[in-house]
Each structure stands twice: as structure tokens, then as C-alpha cells.
């Protein structure tokens, strides 16, 4: 019985993240537009975009290799697997133990690795530009993420995400400076990794300012759809991660009943909407940085995360 329940939770989680990801993006676009007093596209527009892209023929550059055609699926698969291992509305995921936080970080690293390779595959200058910058950002963002994981793992004594979330719900956690630092760092990393303003602009196609868009410049049709979907999934993943660790209220515990799960789902949707609105608000109030300011920005995340691991020894750690 327990197995079936856990399996159904796992499967519904996998489908939920897949289905909610475009909606989240649509919601953020809508919120941003309304904040700028524009009408904005429909809430469901990303779904229509994806469907349209999938049904078009794919144009592939003549110099592209097989990697170019395979990479979108690998990127999508790794991102999806990572996203379905982050507890969204319930902690009792069946395959929770198959990858911990470090592995989730590394799965996102795999997606980035293949995306950067795909950017270089056609052999255009913009692709290389995007890949090179993306990897430069990653060299700071990834260690920052690992250090955040360290902070959480040192406090919760586990790298297992469900255990961490359980610990965060318990009264043992208390208020800690290191957690606050980790939260700030995680938000910075999330902004940088999802190519949001001020690091990158998700809606730009101005050649010299783009990073993520430059890598996927040559993609079209179903390949572009897979890549778009994976970046939407990635945004959802980061928000779920922040929600699950720092705002874990409402998460249905292991072996909870149906009502707990319903509450969890409602809380999750609420959290997504809140985070999406905050992101839209933030994006409308800041300007994009120039590329060589970005390392300073992400470097702050790395410093804060490092400081968080050190300050962990204060407070309850004493």
C-alpha cells in the first residue's frame, strides 16, 4: 500500500512539475507586463508556444553534428529528473533516495554541460560567446550552490532533500544567520542560473547582451521546444527548492493522508505564485548588468555561502 502511494506521489510530482512549469513562466510574464502597465500575453501562452514549436519542422544547420540534435533531449531529461526529485507538495517521494542535493546540483550541471556544447556545435560566433559566458558564470554559481548545500547539510545532518525539509519544519532549526545567508545566496544563484535580469535577459535578442539565448540561437522547432521547456522546468525547480527548504510549511509529510496532500498542493501553488510575483517585481526594478559585473554579483553568492558554512558553527552549533 505504502509503495503504491509513494509511487503515485512520485508520478504525480513528475507530471505536476512538467505541467506547471510553462504556467509559471506565463504567470511571471503576465505579472511583469501588468507591473509595466501592459496587457501582456495570455497566461497560457507558453503552452501554445510549445505546441506550435513542436509541430513545426526543425531546421538544422549544415555544420551541426548529431550532438546538436540529441542535446535538447538530454538537457530536458536531466532537468526533468532533477525537478522531479525536489519535493514540491509532499516529502514522501518514492525515489527520493536515488539522488541527494549534491546529485541534483550535478544533474543541473550535466544539463548546462550539454547546453554549452550544443551552443558550440554549429560553429557560429554567437554560440561560442554564449557558451563561454555561461560556463564563466557557472564556475562561480556551481560552487556557490555546493556551499549552500553544505550549509544545509551541516545543519540538517543530511544531504537528502526530504530529510532537510523535515528538519526545517521541526522546531530544532531556530533562527540562524547562516540560513539567512544561504537563502540570499540561493536566490542569487537561482537568478543567475535561470538567466534572469540582472544577469541575463530572457526576452532579449540583442546580440551582444545575451547569454542563454545566444547558445540556443540555432535551435528551432521541436528542439527549441525541448530547450524552452527545460529552462521553464529549471526555473520551477529552483523555486521549488527554495520553497521546500526555506518555506517548507504545508509540505505533506511522509505517509500523510489525502487531505494533507491537498493542502500541500494548494500551498505549493501559492508559493509558486508568490515567488513568481516577487521575481517579476524584482526584474522590473533592476537593470541588466554588463557581463563583467556579473562575476562580482555571483561572487557575492559564493562569499555568502562560504560565510554561511562558517557561521553555521555559531548559534545552536555552539
Amino acid at each position: 500500500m505504502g509503495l503504491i502511494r509513494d509511487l503515485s506521489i512520485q508520478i504525480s510530482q513528475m507530471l505536476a512539475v512538467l505541467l506547471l512549469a510553462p504556467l509559471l513562466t506565463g504567470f511571471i510574464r503576465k505579472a511583469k507586463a501588468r507591473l509595466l502597465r501592459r496587457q501582456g500575453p495570455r497566461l497560457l501562452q507558453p503552452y501554445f508556444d510549445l505546441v506550435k514549436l513542436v509541430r513545426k519542422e526543425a531546421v538544422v544547420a549544415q555544420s551541426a553534428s548529431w550532438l546538436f540534435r540529441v542535446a535538447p533531449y538530454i538537457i530536458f531529461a536531466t532537468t526533468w529528473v532533477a525537478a522531479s526529485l525536489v519535493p514540491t507538495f509532499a516529502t514522501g517521494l518514492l525515489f527520493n533516495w536515488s539522488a541527494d542535493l549534491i546529485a541534483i546540483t550535478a544533474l543541473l550541471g550535466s544539463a548546462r554541460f550539454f547546453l554549452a556544447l550544443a551552443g558550440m556545435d554549429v560553429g557560429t560566433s554567437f554560440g561560442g560567446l554564449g557558451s563561454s559566458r555561461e560556463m564563466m558564470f557557472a564556475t562561480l554559481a556551481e560552487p556557490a550552490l555546493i556551499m549552500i548545500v553544505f550549509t544545509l547539510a551541516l545543519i540538517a545532518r543530511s544531504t537528502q532533500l526530504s530529510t532537510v525539509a523535515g528538519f526545517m519544519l521541526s522546531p530544532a532549526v531556530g533562527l540562524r544567520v547562516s540560513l539567512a545567508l544561504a537563502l540570499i545566496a540561493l536566490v542569487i544563484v537561482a537568478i543567475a542560473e535561470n538567466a534572469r535580469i540582472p544577469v541575463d535577459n530572457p526576452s532579449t535578442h540583442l546580440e551582444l547582451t545575451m547569454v542563454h539565448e545566444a547558445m540556443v540561437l540555432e535551435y528551432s522547432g521541436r528542439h527549441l521546444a525541448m530547450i524552452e521547456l527545460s529552462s521553464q522546468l529549471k526555473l520551477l525547480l529552483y523555486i521549488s527548492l527554495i520553497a521546500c527548504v526555506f518555506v517548507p510549511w504545508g509540505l505533506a509529510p511522509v505517509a500523510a493522508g489525502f487531505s494533507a496532500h491537498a493542502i500541500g498542493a494548494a500551498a505549493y501553488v501559492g508559493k509558486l505564485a508568490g515567488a513568481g510575483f516577487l521575481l517579476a517585481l524584482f526584474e522590473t526594478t533592476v537593470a541588466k548588468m554588463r557581463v563583467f559585473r556579473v562575476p562580482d554579483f555571483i561572487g557575492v553568492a559564493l562569499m555568502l555561502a562560504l560565510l554561511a558554512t562558517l557561521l553555521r558553527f555559531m548559534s545552536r552549533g555552539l
Partner: protein
Amino acid sequence: MPPAGFLLGDAALLALGAMAIVLGRGRSASAFLYSGALIVSLLLFGAALSRLVTAAEPSTLVLPIGLPWVGAHFRIDALASFFLSVVNFGAASASLYALGYGRREHEPSRVLPFFPAFLAGMNLVLIADDAYSFLVSWEFMSLASWALVMAHHREDENLRAGLVYIVMASIGTFALLLAFGLLAGPGGHYAFAQMRADAPSPLVAATVLGLVLVGAGSKAGLVPLHVWLPLAHPAAPSHVSALMSGVMTKVAVYGFIRVVFDLLGPIDWWWGIPVMVVGAATAVIGVLFALVQTDLKRVLAYSTIENIGVVFVALGLSLVFMANGFSVAAALAMTAALFHVLNHALFKSLLFFGAGAVLTSTGERDMGKLGGLLNLMPATGLFMLVGCAAISALPPLNGFVSEWLVFQAILLSPSLLSWALKLLIPAAGAMLALAAALAGACFVRAFGIAFLGRPRSSAAENAVEVDRFSLTAMGALAVLCLLAGIFPGQVIDALTPVVRDLTGANLVSQSAIPWVSIAPVAESRSSYNGLLVFFFIGMSALLAAYVVHRLASRAIRRAPAWDCGFPDASPLTQYSPDSFSQPIRRVYGNFAFRATERLDMPPPGELRPARFKVEMVDIAWEVFYAPVIGGVNRLATWFNRMQFLTIRQYLSLVFGALVFLLLVLASWA
């Protein structure tokens, strides 16, 4: 197989080497020799692996050769069997690769005799059980590899590489000699068994630790003793480069483990700190330099330095935990170190083979002249991709597992009591995370520039796939990278006897955990399942592809690249290796390589081309080597005067020396 069998194998290898001299330059000589080496290495590998898996008792052998009152001691324990397996597997794959690659060697008589000798030397180091045979084999290994580095000695660069290498190797051996001298003590107990029995005083032990760090570290490539490695490893023929980077550095790691964990006796609390600090610095500096190289083989050589750094961080952690009495944590860190040793041997050999294949089919090592090879060399490209992903620590491949284990060991640090260690170990973890991320960037760059994009030269345009032997060797290694990544529990279990010998504890048996997960400490704390991750990724990718192709469109159209409306530009407009690393060079340049960029932009109207020049300095050269070289030069000039003395002056020198020695003798009592 007892030590005698291994000695026999080594003798066979040496005989092969001798035969190569007799056979000379013929094409059949190369085939004969490499297949002989392949068979012998496979036999030795099988024997060592069976000893490791069955956890055989150590067996010893004493031969009446070598120093008359010592004899030559040989012993194979779990540690030696593990490293014998790694070395002989690397040797076997290199021999297989060389069956194809070696055919195009233009100076076979400079490679063939030394190749088996090099293999024999490494094997002998691992089974030596007294200081004398250890040092002799060590030196034999160094000299054989030096001869291989010098195989193509007509290139100026190789000459310099050989010179730096031989000097550094001599310094290393000298340090080891002193270390063993101190360990042997005034009694002159050169056999390892006796060294193990008597523990040296703390001061002596600390000195030995320092000397071994220098001796083994210089061979392994620890910063700041690494400068020879990126010169020497790429200079050798590619299969030898693979052996030197993938395997010989492991022999150095073995030397370190053997002396520090086995011979040196009880561990002081602070020993792990220098090891960890040096390891972390090595990891970051190594990979930063790998990121700015344009020579493909040199990229790989610098990345070897990084991986050695990772291994030494894990060893340092193990020392720290052992000294503080946390033997399970020590076992975890040691498992991580050994696992990474194995992983690095696998993927670094694979990558060097790939670089060799590229070199064979294009004649180029400079990445700025490559590009688009994935279309022309699909199999090599695929295997290289696996190697690059594995070394970048991406799941579900093997590099990730050892990295994950190191991180798990780091996360056990709060149980330590010393505040300095509690704060230092996460900082080392941060360095490792940084190194891992940089390695990812480094191998995106290496693979992306060499194998993707459009060919940057006619040599790259005309590349063809390499021979079947090379492909088999690469394919086998790529498959093993995947297997070790999805069945890590089996590897960890195989390492158990080694770890138990060294740290006195072992991890829980991983194969008992259901679903081939690994959970080094406890499942509530952390677990990872490579197989499931692999399965999930594969399934979701296939599912997505199936759904999209089936329900939507599968049409494809080939067209010129769009490139934001600038199609059909010259391939030279692609990002070059230098431009790819430029952002990273700017971010890390100041404190790592003191990069200075100079731009010479002529004013409008002038016809001379604009020039952009980047200069980078390896700080290790400036700080450590330049003064030493200057000192040696000054000393040499000073001694030069001795050449022009009169006979009377020479005689008075001899006379003075005699009187001095007599005085020393007189004051001795």
C-alpha cells in the same frame, strides 16, 4: 598469484624490452611487442584483481639480490593489489591502443624498448617491500619514462621538457631517499616490515611527511612541484602520455599512501592539514591552467594536476579523521581517494587516447586548428564526450561518484573537535567545488573547440576515423567509466580490504543495500543511486523523443547556419580556445596567472593589423624556480673558476680536503 608470479611478469616485460632492441625498427616488431605487453599486462591485471576481490592475505618473498645484507623484499598486500590492478589495466589498455597507434610511430626504436621497461618499473615499485628495491624501481620507472619523453628529442620543446623532468625526478627521488633514510633510523632497517614495527619520534615523522610530500608529490604533480608535468606528459607519444598521466601519477600516490599510512606509525593531528591545503591549491591552480592552454594534450596534463589535488584532499581528510579517531569517516575519505584514483586512471587514459587519435588523424595538437571532428571521427568523438563528461563529474558517470564521496566525507567534519579543522575542511570543500566547476568549463572548452563547430584548418577538414585497435581501447575505457558510475557499490566493496588495512575500519557493505544504491554513512544521511539516475535520464530522454516524434513533427531540414543573420562567415569567426577562456581569464586572472592583456590598435587610416597579446605567468615559476635557477647559475659561474687553476692550486685543494677530513675524524669521538 604470489609475488614470484608478478616478478616473473616483470621479467617478461623486461625481456620484451630487450627483444625490441634486437628486432629493431620493423613494423612487426611494434605489433609483436605491444601484443606481448598486452598479454602480460592482462595476466598481471587478472592476478592482481583476483587478489583484491578475494581479499587474499599478504604474501611476501625475499630474494638474495640487491644490497648484500638486506636482500630484495617483495610483498603484495591489498593496497599493492589495488594499485597493481589499476596500473596493469592502464598498461593493458595502452598496449591495445598502441597496437594501432604505434604503427605510425616514426621513431619506433626510441619507444619500443622503453615501453615495457616502464611498465615493469611501475610494477616493481608496487611490490617492493624494502627501501632499496623501492628506490631502485622508482628510479628505473623515472628513467624509462624520461627516455620515452625524449623519444622525439629533435623538437626543441621536448628537449626542455626532458631536462626539467629529469631534474625534478632527481629531486623527488632524493627526497624519498632522505625520507627512507630517516625511517630506517640509525639501525639501518631498510625492510618495510621493520620500519612498520618501530615508530619514529614526532619530529622525525614530521620531517618524513614533508619529504614524502616533496618526493611523491613531485612525481604526482602537486603544486608547486608541478611545472615539469605539463611539459613532459604531452611530449611523450600519446599512449605513453596516457600511462604517465593516468597511471604513473597513481604510483606516486601509492608511494605517499604506503609511507604515510603504512610505514610512518601513529598519525599526528595536524598532518592532514598541509596535505589538504596543498591538495586544494593543486586542484584549483591545475584546472585554472588547464583552462587557458591551447594544446589539447597540455590541457589534459594540467587537468591531471587537478585530479591529483582532489586525491590528496581526500587523503588529507582521511589523515585528519584517523588522527582524531573517527575511523569510519577516515575509511570514507580513503575510499573516495582510491575511487578517484581508479576513475582518473580510466578517464585520463581515455582522454589521452582520444587526443592521440586526433593527433594521428590531423597532425595537430593545437585546438585553435581543430574543430568539427565529431562529424569526421564519430566514434572517437563519442568516447571523448564520455571521457569529458566523466572528468567533469557529471552523473551518472564515475567522476561524479568519487566527487560525491569526497563531499560526503567533508560533511562529516563537524564531529571533529578542533575549531581550526572544523572551519578549514569546508573551505577545502569550497575549493574542490570550485575546481569541479572549472573542470566542467575546461572540458566544455576542450571538447567544444576540438570536436564541435566547423574545422578551423585543412588538417581538421581532412580528418578520418582512427584504427580499430585504438577505438576498442577507447571504447572499453568509456564503457568502464559508465559502469563504474552506475555500479559504484561494487567498486566500493572491492576497495574494502584496502581501506580496512589502511584505516582500520570499513564502510558498510554497499552491495547489501537494495537497488544498488550507495549510502556510505547512513541512508537517512545521504544516498545515491547511479543506476536509477542513468535509467531515469535515459527513459525520460527516450520518452520525450518518442512522444515528440510520434505525436508532433519529425521533419528536419538542413539549412545554412542562421547566426543572427550573418551566415556563411569564415570558420575563423568561431570562438577560438583563447576567446573561450577569456572571460574566465579575466575573472580569475589576477590572482592565478597574473594575466596581462595588451591591445595594439592602430589609429584609423593606418594599415597595420591590430594585435592583441596575452601574457600569463605561472607564479610557481617565479616564486620557487626562478630563484633556484638563478642560484644554481651563480654557483656554476663560481665553480667555473675552478677549471682554470694551476696544478699547485689543485694539489692544495686536495691537500686541504684531506686535512679537513682528518680534522673531522679527530673531533668525532
